[in-house]
C-alpha cells in the first residue's frame, strides 16, 4: 500500500511540473497579449491579466494587409495538405499493398526527399520560379509545400495502410460492394486516424514555412502569416503586448486544430491498443 502511494506520488508530481513547463510559454503569450501595457512593463511580472484589454489585438488587426496574410496562409496550407494527402494515399497503397520491381528504390527516394534541405536551396528555387515568371504568386508556394510534406506523408500513411487487413476489403466485395464502395465504406474509416495524424504534420509544416516565402514573395499581397509576424515584430518589437497579440493570432488556429485532432487520434489509438 505504502509502495503504491509512493509509486503514484512521484509520477504525478513530475507530471504537474512538466505541465507547467510545457504550458507556460503558450500561457505567457496569451496572458501578455491581454495585459495593459503598464502591466507588461512592470518591475515584477503580473502573472495573470486581471485587467484584460483588447487594445493589442486591435493594433494587430489594424496592421496592413492583415486579412490578405490570413487568406494566403489558409489557402496555401489547405491546398498543400489536401494535395499531398491525395497523392500520398495513392502512393502509399502501392507501396504497402503491392510487390513490384523497384519498390525498395522508390522508398529510398522518399527517404532522401525527406532529408531535402529546402532552407538552403532557396536560391535555385528562386531562379526557377523567377524564370517561370511566377514570383509573388501562391501557385509555386502551394506546389513546393505539397512536395515538402509529401515524403513524410507517404512514409507514415503506408504504415497505416499496411495495417488495414486486406481481407476486409475482399469481404466487402464478396458482399457485393464495388472496389470504390469497399474503399469508401470500409477502408477509409479505418484510415481516418492515420490521415488525421499525417495531415497534422503537413499542416504545421506548411503553416510554418518561412525561408521560401521570404525569398519568393516580396510583395505583401502574396505573403503568408510567418512573414507577417516577423515583420510585425520588427515594427512593434518593443511593444510586447502587440507582438504577443500577433503571435497569438498566428498560433491560435493551429493550436485549436491540434488539440481537436490530437484528441481523436490518441483516443483512437489507445482504444485499439489496449487489446493486444
Amino acid at each position, binding site marked *: 500500500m505504502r509502495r503504491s502511494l509512493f509509486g503514484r506520488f512521484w509520477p504525478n508530481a513530475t*507530471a504537474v511540473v512538466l505541465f507547467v513547463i*510545457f504550458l507556460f510559454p503558450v500561457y505567457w503569450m496569451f496572458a501578455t497579449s491581454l495585459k495593459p501595457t503598464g502591466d507588461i512593463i512592470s518591475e515584477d511580472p503580473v502573472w495573470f491579466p486581471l485587467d484584460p484589454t483588447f487594445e493589442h489585438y486591435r493594433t494587430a488587426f489594424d496592421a496592413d494587409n492583415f486579412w490578405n496574410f490570413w487568406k494566403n496562409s489558409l489557402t496555401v496550407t489547405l491546398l498543400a495538405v489536401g494535395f499531398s494527402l491525395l497523392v500520398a494515399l495513392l*502512393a502509399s497503397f502501392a507501396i504497402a499493398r503491392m510487390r513490384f520491381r523497384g519498390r525498395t528504390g522508390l522508398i529510398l527516394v522518399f527517404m532522401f526527399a525527406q532529408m531535402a534541405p529546402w532552407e538552403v536551396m532557396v536560391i535555385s528555387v528562386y531562379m526557377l520560379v523567377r524564370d517561370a515568371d511566377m514570383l509573388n504568386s501562391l501557385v509555386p508556394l502551394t*506546389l513546393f509545400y505539397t512536395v515538402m510534406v509529401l515524403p513524410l506523408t507517404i*512514409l507514415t500513411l503506408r504504415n497505416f495502410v499496411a495495417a488495414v487487413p486486406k481481407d476486409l476489403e475482399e469481404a466487402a466485395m464478396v458482399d457485393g460492394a464495388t472496389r470504390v464502395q469497399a474503399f469508401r465504406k470500409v477502408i477509409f474509416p479505418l484510415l481516418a*486516424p492515420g490521415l488525421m495524424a499525417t495531415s497534422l504534420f503537413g499542416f504545421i509544416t506548411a503553416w510554418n514555412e518561412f525561408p521560401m516565402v521570404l525569398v519568393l514573395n516580396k510583395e505583401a499581397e502574396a505573403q503568408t502569416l510567418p512573414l507577417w509576424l516577423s515583420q510585425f515584430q520588427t515594427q512593434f518589437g518593443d511593444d510586447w503586448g502587440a507582438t*504577443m497579440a500577433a503571435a*497569438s493570432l498566428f498560433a491560435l488556429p493551429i493550436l485549436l486544430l491540434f488539440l481537436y485532432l490530437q484528441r481523436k487520434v490518441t483516443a483512437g*489509438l489507445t482504444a485499439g*491498443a489496449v487489446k493486444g
Partner: protein
Amino acid sequence: MTVQIPRPAEKAKGRARTTPPPPPGRNRKAQGSAGALPYLLLLPALVLTAVLLGWPLIKNGVLSFQQLGMKELIQHLTVWNGVDNYADALGGEDFWRVTLRTIVFTAVNVALIMLLGTLVGLLLARLGRKMRLTLLMALVLAWAMPIIAATTVYQWLFAERYGVVNWILDKLGWHSMADYSWTSSQFSTFFVITVMLVWTSVPFVAINLYAATTTIARELYEAAGLDGAGAWRTFTSVTFPFIRPFLLATTFLEIIWIFKAFPHVYAINGGGPDRLTETLPVYAFVEGVGNQHYGMGAAISVLTILVLMGLTSYYIRLLMKQEREDS
C-alpha cells in the same frame, strides 16, 4: 517512417475481430503480379517530387559551379568558375568551424530531446488517465506552436528588461542576471535556442513513444512480474526491445529536423552575435542570400546536403537492409 506502425495495426485488429491477427501487413505475399497499377498509383508522387525537388536540386548543383552575384542574377548572366566556390568554402576556416558547430549543436540537441522525450513518454504510460490527458494537452500545445510564434515568445521570455526569466533568476539570487542580455554571447544565444528546440521537439518524441508503449501486451509485463523481474529488468527486457525501432526512427527524424532547423536559429538573433551562432543552413542562407554570393551559397548548400547524408548514412543503410529483407 516506421514511427506509427503499432497504432493502426492494433486499432485495425481491435475492430476486425472476425479475422485472426494478420501478420505485419507488408510481409503478405498475396499480391504477386500487380502489373502497371503500382506505377500508375505512384506516378503523381514521383512526378511532383522529380519536378519540384529534383529540378531545384540539380539547378542548385549547377549554380554551385558559377560565379553568381547580384549583377549576374539580374542580368541573367552565366559565368562559370569551375570549382572555385568549393575551393573557397573548403579552403577557408569558416566552413569547417560552422560544420563542427552544427554537428555539436545537432548532437547536443538530439541527445537532450531523445533522452527527455523518452522519459516523458514513459511517464505518460505510467500516469492515470486524467493526469495523462492533462499533460498531453500541454505537450500538444507546445508541439503545435508555430516556429516564428515560438521564437517571438522566447524572445519575450528572455527579454533583457521585463523578461520573466531574468526576473526569476534575480529572485533566485543571481542578481547579476537581472538585466542580462541573452543574445549578447554565443553561448547564451545557443542556450536559448536549445531550450526552445527541446521544448518544441520533446512532445513529438514523447507522444510517439507513449503510443508505442500502449501496444505492448499486458501479458508480457505480467509474465515478467511472475518471473520476479524488477522495474529495471522489466524495462530492459520487455519495454526497451519493443520501443527500439521507434527510438531509431525518431532519432533519425530529429537529426534531420535539428540539423535543418533554420527559422529557430535565424529568427532569434540572425545567427549573431558576430555570426557566432550560424549553423550550416543559416550560414548558407546568410552567405548566399544575405551577402548576395549566390553561387557560393549554392556550393555551401551542396556541402550541407553531403554532411547531412553523412550524419544519417547509418540509419539509411539500416533501412535499406530492412526494406530488402521485407521485399
